[in-house]
């Protein structure tokens, strides 16, 4: 029995500043399929288009050409409100710069993606606390982001990505700001998530990530194209 295809890109391209002298083809006619529970690494040097491809897969950016199918539905044609729903229900994002909101607490940051679902505040808190406990951050739930170490910030970002129980985790250069020990810790958390059935798509050029044994597929990119 073949694995279920969760995400598919068909000849997808993303061009910035089209028709202008500074036109950049960040992603050039990429077609790929990602199955449920895959651990996919998008590998390549800076400027190769990894982040753009990740943003196209995560419905944060529309392609200039081509199709992005999420569970066989063409996300390109969907209006913004549906894309928001897909982002909310299907994807959990871990950004390179983490993008945690500094002025609020760890727990509040983790709770953020769940507010728009309309759940009761107590339920949102319960979910956040379970995740914080799982990621060994419960004691720091009332801390402000600036009071955390790099690894703790990273784990907060992971908790925030997981709160809506997404099927796919997208991580952009997740180990870029971590030392080796923290990077290994992060990868072990990702491994656990994969064991729970999550699909992982990681954009990175860190060998420590793409040399992990549980990676099922490596997509190598250069100048916007898959090699």
């Amino acid at each position, binding site marked *: 029995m073949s694995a279920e295809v969760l995400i598919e890109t068909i000849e997808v391209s993303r061009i910035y500043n089209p028709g202008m002298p500074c036109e950049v083809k960040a992603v050039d006619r990429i077609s790929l399929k990602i199955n449920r529970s895959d651990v996919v690494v998008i590998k390549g040097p800076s400027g190769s288009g990894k982040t753009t491809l990740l943003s196209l897969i995560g419905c944060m950016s529309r392609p200039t050409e081509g199709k992005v199918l999420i569970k066989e539905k063409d996300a390109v044609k969907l209006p913004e409100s549906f894309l*928001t729903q897909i982002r909310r229900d299907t994807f959990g994002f871990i950004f390179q710069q983490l993008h945690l909101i500094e002025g609020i607490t760890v727990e509040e940051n983790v709770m953020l993606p769940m507010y728009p679902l309309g759940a009761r505040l107590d339920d949102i808190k319960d979910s956040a606390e379970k995740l914080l406990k799982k990621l060994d951050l419960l004691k720091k739930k009332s801390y402000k982001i600036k009071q955390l170490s790099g690894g703790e910030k990273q784990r907060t970002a992971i908790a925030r990505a997981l709160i809506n129980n997404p099927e796919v985790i997208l991580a952009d*250069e997740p180990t870029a700001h971590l030392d080796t020990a923290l990077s290994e810790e992060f990868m072990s958390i990702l491994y656990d998530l994969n064991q729970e059935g999550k699909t992982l798509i990681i954009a990175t050029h860190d060998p420590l990530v793409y040399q992990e044994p549980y990676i099922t597929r490596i997509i190598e990119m250069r100048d916007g194209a898959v090699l």
Partner: protein
Amino acid sequence: MPEERGECAIGRGVAQTRYIRLGGELILTSSKGEHFLFRVTGLFTADSEILTNDLIVLKNQDVIEFFGMPENRATDLVVQVYNEREVPVIAYKITEMFPGTRPITRSEIIRTYETVFNWRSGMVLAMFAGALAAFFILAWDKATGLSAEERKEIGILKAIGWNTSDILTLKFWEGVVISLTSFLTGLILAYIHVFFLGAPLIVPAIKGWSVVFPDLRPFPQVNPNHIVVILVATVFPLCVKHFNPVVEGSGNRPRYGDEGLRLCRPITGE
């Protein structure tokens, strides 16, 4: 007022300085070193303090005797004029008849007080205008765009699954809470400053170096009209100005990864 010789009426300032009550005795020493004793039969009320605080009223004969003045001499005279329009004419005639005198009319006294207080109120108004200008500059700054931090925040929210209406609702309530909290805090602090602490920050500006009797003591009064006017003038504009740029900013896509940047850039249109 004193009805017989040996009696006097005094102001509250005199009574407090000499520790005298109504019915007590006031001892005054003349320039020749003679002591005169007067029984206090009248005490001016607090309402008239601005004029009577340091006043002692004696019978004519007592004054003449105390100062050693000739019987037919007076230093101050009160002239009552029934037709107010005649006052300047009569003042002029008095000057003509007695060149060494200086008539002071009631309108001149009122004008002097008004001058003293008006220019000071102008000073306070200038300070207030500065504060108001600062408020509008701040509000304008908010209205004309989002800060980099706010752009980033909206970008993050969009990227983690918030839609435009969620962000607008959040920002609307954020604006309401911030402006209402500021308004109420300002109102309470102003009330405490004026009514409990005696307005130490504005009284020097109003009184200057002069000594004003009675003491300038604002009394507690909450005027609903004033509160509504301040509310309308501050809370509503601030809410709108807080909300307006967010309306423009939150409608765009998160655009993570666009143009090779790894920042959320939700503002500029595609």
